């Protein structure tokens, strides 16, 4: 063993129960702005599912299984408009690319030498913009021993909030005025933007955010396939290169 056994024990407080970590994560959702944002977003998604003729159990299951706002908006509107399975799967798959780097950057914060891959499957499933942003902010204050449970608690809290909103939106759909639905749909980009801004403290993150904002729609406009992936890789790499150059010059 390259690391002396005393070091991790000294860094970590005594191992806390998984239940304690779960409760800590779950409680954190109540004070998080994302609970309100998710509630608004998923009210919109519930209403959208209703308007496109899907059933309530279908809408609820889509929130549980897909658990990504933009993907669900695409799935419901494209499928509801009669798109083919392959076509819709491709669009959803492209919107989901962002989850890969999010999961890759989150999991190393949770892992310990003895962690098994299956223990990371739930935190990976719970990974969505809201959970990722909050986890990155809150995890450094949590003891490593219960970070997995913390993430599961966080994901469950947000999930319950989103499910309640999906049901509410489904029933409200017929009664919501269009302007109200528009403001609910607008919550997603606004809240994503504000929280990305808040989490961008380092120059590399701010640059990546700014470049992505411009490059994303440009690449989409040129109808390059996999537009989000390309704008992400180009924008992120450029931001990283600037960061490296600055480090070297310092």
């Amino acid at each position, binding site marked *: 063993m390259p690391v002396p056994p005393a070091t991790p024990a000294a860094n970590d407080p005594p191992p806390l129960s998984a239940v304690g970590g779960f409760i800590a994560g779950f409680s954190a959702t109540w004070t998080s702005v994302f609970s309100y944002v998710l509630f608004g977003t998923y009210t919109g998604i519930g209403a959208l599912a209703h308007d496109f003729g899907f059933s309530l159990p279908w809408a609820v299951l889509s929130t549980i299984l897909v658990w990504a706002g933009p993907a669900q908006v695409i799935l419901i509107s494209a499928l509801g408009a009669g798109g083919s399975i392959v076509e819709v799967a491709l669009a959803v798959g492209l919107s*989901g690319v962002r989850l890969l780097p999010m999961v890759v950057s989150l999991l190393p914060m949770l892992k310990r030498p003895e962690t098994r891959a299956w223990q990371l499957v739930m935190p990976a499933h719970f990974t969505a913009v809201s959970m990722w942003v909050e986890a990155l902010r809150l995890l450094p204050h949590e003891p490593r021993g219960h970070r997995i449970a913390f993430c599961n608690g966080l994901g469950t809290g947000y999930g319950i909030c989103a499910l309640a909103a999906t049901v509410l939106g489904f029933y409200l759909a017929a009664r919501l005025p269009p302007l109200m639905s528009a403001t609910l749909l607008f919550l997603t980009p606004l809240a994503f933007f504000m929280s990305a801004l808040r989490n961008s403290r380092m120059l590399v993150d701010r640059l990546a955010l700014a470049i992505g904002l411009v490059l994303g729609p440009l690449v989409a406009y040129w109808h390059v396939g996999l537009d989000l992936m390309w704008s992400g890789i180009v924008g992120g790499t450029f931001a990283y290169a600037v960061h490296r150059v600055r480090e070297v010059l310092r």
Partner: protein
Amino acid sequence: MSAFSGEWGAYLALILAGFLPNEIWRWLGVIFARGLDEGSEVLVWVRAVATAILAGVIAKLTIFAPGVLATVPTPARLAAVGIGFLAFALIRRSVFAGVLAGEAALVVGALVFG
């Protein structure tokens, strides 16, 4: 949904066109995260890519807006995001203030220019 009509067809479509193409990225993430530790330099780049992709999603949702949001004119949507940003920057980097100001601006924009 022609080939997948009916209640069960809708569930099959949910799995094939919704769950699997989305979840695959999370599973790949679990695989790629193996062997990386928290302090590794690669993660700074990975996070930058994730942030740039997220920025792309934000801009696309604003410019190529879904559903009824598309009925609000594009300049009004862009201005609302800008006003949200100003509120965020001016009011102690508060996410809540930014979201609230952006939404208020959207409603005003929709009523005046819609």
